[in-house]
């Protein structure tokens, strides 16, 4: 401890102890190094995909691109993304306005009802529509994806409307604008970044959605990738298409981040706010109730109706599910989800701690690497890890470890968010005090920081596990042979038109997905969370 003394002459006589200094240096590097390792691991799917495409024969790639009618697929996917995004924007902003700015009776229950759409995984909704109607193809995918994703726009728009200055709309009215023009010119600019960030999330979801387009037999990128992969001859094609899809996803995530930043700056510039006077709907409120009821009926009524029909009436011939199979699938689903949440936590801890405690370029870089999980569609991560395990780590091919790792990458943004926000809440002053009371940095972590942050991190990990339970495309590609999860069984049974057998799976999956959706709805509408966390 006493490593230098003043000599009799009063000069400094330093006696540095190299081993302890080296150890201190090592201690300081542990966190950044592990964060870099975690970020590199999270980047493996993207990097390996690019490597794989770069290694492929150039002419083979060109051939593959021509053969696959890639332009058609591109138009199909982009068309679907644009159509669903626009529909969600219009519907979402309209619903948000009704629920935040009018005197519509029952706004709170309507908010819950309209957010419940998040509790239905899109492929479960697709199952509902297929099982009860003849809708297929573009319109089928459009309907299902729009209805499932509207809350991604509604919730952040409500949050922004609550923060937006309502007085500016009144001023615009006094300056001669109609109600509609006043909304467009005064309020819309204040909520636009939030709504557009929500729309970009919708676009990202549609881009990466596999289950519902496959069930609706709509030729989008994700489905084409799976078909190409299964045909075995076209694996290079699958890789090329995955790279294209990944690039589109990264662009969307970058745009979403910019929008979110713009909204955050907006909020801070608005000074004193007046409580908005709710717009009196008068007789129009019956139309509003009717519109909300139609949306709810389509997004909740159809899937739940299909469930009721097949669970209660049992009119179909007995392709009914065996309870034992359902239990076995549920068990393997839980096991895989827990392993995946563990992987996500392991990757997220160093990145989240670094982001919470150190503002450096390294912290920013490792944190943005974690967002790859949001940008990369599940099918892309799955495919890349199939290639990776076949060529680099054959013993991991189709092992639960590889699937757990895929979940870890896919749900890393959620886990990092939970770790970072939980640790930010631990005051740095507490850590300082603990140091002065004789705790080493490691001791401070175990005795103070981790102890206080643990409940928040644990809740975040639980949400990751619940989300992983409904993951479909990566699970389809990476699950060990013979292992089925709730999601893959539902997909297999629905593809085979065994709707009665699929119904119990759909019910369990809705129950699983409802937990995070309902838990987070209020916080997203209050602006405390981002809508991506409910995905």
């Amino acid at each position, binding site marked *: 401890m006493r490593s230098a003394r003043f000599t009799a002459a009063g000069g400094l006589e330093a006696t540095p102890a190299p081993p302890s200094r080296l150890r201190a240096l090592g201690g300081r590097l542990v966190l950044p190094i592990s964060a870099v390792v975690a970020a590199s691991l999270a980047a493996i799917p993207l990097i390996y995909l690019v490597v794989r495409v770069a290694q492929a024969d150039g002419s083979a790639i060109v051939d593959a691109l021509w053969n696959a009618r890639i332009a058609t697929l591109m138009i199909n996917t982009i068309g679907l993304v644009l159509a669903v995004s626009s529909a969600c924007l219009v519907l979402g902003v309209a619903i948000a306005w009704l629920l935040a700015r009018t005197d519509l009776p029952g706004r709170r229950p309507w908010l819950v009802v309209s957010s419940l759409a998040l509790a239905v995984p899109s492929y479960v909704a697709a199952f509902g529509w297929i099982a009860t109607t003849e809708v297929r193809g573009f319109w089928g995918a459009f309907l299902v994806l729009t209805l499932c994703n509207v809350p991604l726009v509604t919730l952040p728009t409500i949050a922004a409307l609550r923060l937006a200055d309502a007085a500016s709309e009144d001023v615009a009215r006094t300056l001669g604008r109609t109600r509609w023009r006043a909304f467009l010119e005064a309020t819309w600019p204040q909520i636009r970044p939030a709504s557009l960030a929500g729309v970009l999330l919708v676009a990202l979801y549609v881009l990466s959605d596999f289950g519902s387009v496959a069930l609706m037999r709509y030729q989008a990128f994700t489905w084409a990738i799976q078909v190409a992969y299964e045909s075995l001859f076209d694996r290079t094609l699958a890789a090329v298409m995955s790279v294209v899809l990944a690039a589109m996803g990264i662009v969307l995530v970058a745009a979403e981040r910019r929008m979110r930043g713009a909204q955050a700056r907006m909020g801070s510039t608005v000074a004193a706010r007046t409580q908005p006077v709710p717009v009196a709907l008068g007789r129009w409120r019956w139309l509003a109730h009717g519109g909300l009821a139609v949306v709810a009926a389509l997004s909740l009524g159809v899937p739940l109706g299909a469930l009721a029909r097949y669970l209660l009436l049992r009119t179909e011939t007995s392709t009914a599910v065996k309870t034992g199979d359902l239990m076995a699938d549920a068990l393997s689903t839980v096991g895989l989800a827990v392993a995946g949440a563990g992987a996500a936590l392991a990757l997220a801890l160093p990145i989240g701690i670094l982001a919470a405690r150190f503002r450096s370029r390294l912290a920013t870089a490792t944190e943005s690497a974690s967002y790859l999980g949001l940008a990369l569609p599940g099918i892309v991560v799955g495919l890349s890890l199939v290639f990776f395990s076949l060529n680099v780590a054959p013993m991991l091919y189709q092992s639960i470890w590889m699937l757990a790792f895929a979940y870890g990458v896919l749900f890393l943004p959620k886990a990092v968010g939970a770790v970072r926000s939980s640790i930010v809440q631990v005051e740095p002053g507490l850590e300082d*005090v603990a140091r*002065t009371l004789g705790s080493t940095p490691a001791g401070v972590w175990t005795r103070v920081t981790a102890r206080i942050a643990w409940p928040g991190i644990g809740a975040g990990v639980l949400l990751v596990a619940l989300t992983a339970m409904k993951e479909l495309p990566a699970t389809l590609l990476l699950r060990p042979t013979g292992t089925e999860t709730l999601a893959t069984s539902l997909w297999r049974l629905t593809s085979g038109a065994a709707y009665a057998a699929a119904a119990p799976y759909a019910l369990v999956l809705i129950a699983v997905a409802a937990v995070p959706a309902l838990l987070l709805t209020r916080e997203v509408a209050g602006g405390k969370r981002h809508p991506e966390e409910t995905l």
Partner: protein
Amino acid sequence: MSELQVRKIVAGYDSAPVLRGITFTVPHGSLTAVLGPSGSGKSTLLRVIAGLNRPVEGAVVIDGTVLSGPRVHVAPERRRIGLVPQDAALFPHLDVLANVGFGLPRAQRRGRKALDLLEMVGMTDYATRMPGELSGGQRHRVALARALATEPDVVLLDEPFSALDAALRAEVRGQVREVLRRAQTTAVLVTHDQDEALSMADQVAVVDEGRLVQVGTPAEIYAKPASRWLAQFVGGALVLPGTWSDGAVAGPLGVVPANLADGHIAHPGDTVDLVLRPEQLSLSAVGAGGGPGVIAMVCDVAYFGHDAVVTLDLPGCEQPVQARVLGDQQWRPDSEVLVGVRSAGLAFARE
């Protein structure tokens, strides 16, 4: 025995230096207040002493042992320096007793020693309460007990009372001073509150913009401030221009006896700044034969009960001046008074 020396500390975050060479010594068992406006670098100084911030230059020395210095940096957990932060920073997941015992070896954490300290700060009855259930003053007493539990050589207090309301502040100040005296601990208190610094400390070090302005006993700092700025910062002062003639300054208040501030030189006829404390002015009714003085107009009276501050419009003086008088004197706005000076002022030469 533990004497703390702070020697020529230069420190900062990234490249901008916050402290530009601070030197002072805290004798054993005494309390030094580091006083300065917000943003002056006080808290950084505290972090440097605690070892939470590594200085660029200079040394922190306790009893001849270098804790921070060239090529030396003892980790905060090995310095034996306790810290009581601004917001008390009690560990929210531990009860009061566990907070106090945090720095003790595992076996003693809920033992005799922690209980003794709780008794010392008068919190024995609250041993099993959680920090969220305590009032602000109680939290600070627990934080102090926690810092003292490891028998540190030095205790650092970072604006420990600023979160308390005024009535509670005086009470907790007294309690803290008493506890520190009984424990005979060397202590450094950082504050921007001059009342706190003057009333609690054995020694006051005034810091501004990362530099040490003056070190001395509270009485020295108040009676002989080293600069006009310091005079106005500590205690409030009126600064009047005047002409120096041996031992007196001629100005708007007439000829006032004055001493030159340390290190200042003036020749008769030079223009100087005369610094007076508000309580050095005396007011009396015009025409009552109250001795020498000048006549001024009362602008405003702020009445505090025990005393009152009278704002005066003085002929030949651009800004209004303030006089502090006992509460039993009654002055009405827009009336004339005779202003005199009770005791010698302090004169600063103009550069």
